[in-house]
């Protein structure tokens, strides 16, 4: 029997060279099915962030292609690229909140750029902030929030448009164990609701507690791809 199912994401022989002596990514091939929860692990400098940059079209591969639902995202025109990014929610290690906007405005900004109406924004933003347990601090600016709270705002921003894919780049890297646990639980919940999640981390505890698919990268190459993986480096 031939499986005709199109993967959501497909990395086809992707290589990224920043300088000719070192490969940030070296012939990377893998695919992600819809509603999967994938963790990408590796030491610092292994190529995890580069891989995500390729996926967000922040950077182009030197050779190879990255497909999102069979479209090569690096050949998309600017207007379609913006549309693609609206379908992806992104969470970063350093939160990347807009410093001059309140928690509410940070989340509503993602809805505004997605073309949502004021009415939708007024109803969905408090709901998203409620999901991450930050309803009471929605009018606080990022500098008035703790690291864990900032990350929860970033998660609310990432999920508020009900994206098809969440990319979380070391989201627990700057958090204490309690906040780390909270963030991972929220990501699991998002995935259970049907959103594909790609998580990069080098937190062994997080990976082992998830028990989901794990791709291990070392020196730009995929060295393991385990369906129910553990943190092995």
């Amino acid at each position, binding site marked *: 029997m031939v499986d005709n199912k199109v993967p959501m994401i497909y990395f086809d022989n992707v290589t990224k060279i920043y300088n000719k002596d070192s490969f940030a990514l070296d012939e990377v091939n893998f695919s992600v099915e819809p509603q999967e929860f994938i963790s990408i692990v590796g030491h610092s400098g292994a190529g995890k962030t580069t891989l995500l940059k390729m996926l967000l079209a922040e950077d182009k591969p030197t050779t190879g292609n990255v497909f999102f639902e069979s479209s090569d995202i690096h050949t998309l025109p600017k207007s379609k690229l*913006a549309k693609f990014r609206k379908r992806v929610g992104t969470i970063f290690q350093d939160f990347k909140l807009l410093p*001059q906007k309140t928690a509410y405005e940070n989340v509503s900004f*993602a809805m*505004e*750029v997605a073309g949502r109406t004021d009415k939708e924004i007024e109803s969905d933003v408090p709901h998203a902030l409620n999901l991450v347990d930050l309803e009471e601090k929605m009018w606080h600016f990022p500098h008035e929030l703790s690291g864990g709270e900032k990350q929860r705002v970033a998660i609310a921003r990432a999920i508020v448009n009900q994206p098809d894919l969440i990319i979380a780049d070391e989201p627990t890297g700057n958090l204490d164990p309690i906040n780390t646990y909270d963030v991972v639980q929220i990501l699991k919940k998002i995935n259970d609701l049907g959103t594909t999640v790609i998580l990069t981390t080098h937190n062994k505890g997080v990976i082992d507690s998830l028990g989901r698919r794990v791709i291990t990268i070392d020196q730009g190459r995929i060295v393991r791809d385990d369906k129910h993986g553990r943190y092995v480096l």
Partner: protein
Amino acid sequence: MFWVNTKRILKSGFISFFRNGFVSLAAILVMSITLFAVGSLLFSGALLEDSLNELRNKVDINVYFVTGAEESDVLAMKTTLEALPEVREVEYTSSEEALERFREKHRDDQLTLQALEELEENPLRASLSIRAKETSQYEGIANFLEGESALSVDSQSIIDNVNYFQNKEAIDNLTGIIDNSERSNLMKTILLVVISVLITFNTITLAIYNSREEIRVMKLVGAGNWYVQGPFVVSGGMYGIVSSTAALLLFYPVTQWFGPMFYPFSFLSSTQDINLLAYYSSNFTEIFLTTFSVGILLGIISSYLAVKRYINV
């Protein structure tokens, strides 16, 4: 959706103008100085033009006609001269008027008046006083008059003499001074405008450099270029509005207190009490529109270009 987005962009630009208070203040300060400099150029240009016009008005050439020249011939020549494109105005003084003015001028000088009475006929000649549009055009007019004189009928010219040739050197020098003043003023204006634009552009670029990470995040969240650039452009426009207002307010005390110092040729002027403040008040609309449009355009264009640098994520 267009109006909703426009409203959101305007609101966001407005809010970030106030939230980035320190950056806004720095940009406004630099822009106010820039606009003040640009406005001062308007003033100094106007004053210089006024002074140069005063100088130009001091220059004319007079054509004296032979005694006994028919008035109709002189008036015909006046008409011919007025038709020349270089000529601004021609004033006719008949020999009687010349005599009248002479008497008026020397009314306290009995000796001269008596000497005049001794003469049987009016010794003064009719004349045309010619003013050109530009001082450099006097030579052409004088040459034209020379030609007229040579071509006159019966080989009897009615022109006695043209005083240009006696005053040629002075007129040429004056022409040189006027031309140089205008040229150097133009150069100074261009230089100052270029410097001002560069300073403003640099200040706004630095202000937006602070927000480069923010721009990147906006793009990653899925914002289109205009949605990212819009609020910065709105803030830039607001810098322009506030700094133009500041510059216009600053002009009042400056024109009032320092105005007289800026008048370069006041000793020549018949209106020595020329008042910069009055000039500012009477030309307020023009100055207001120039300062505001320069301010707003500078703010908007600088912001647009500065954000453009960081937007290609």
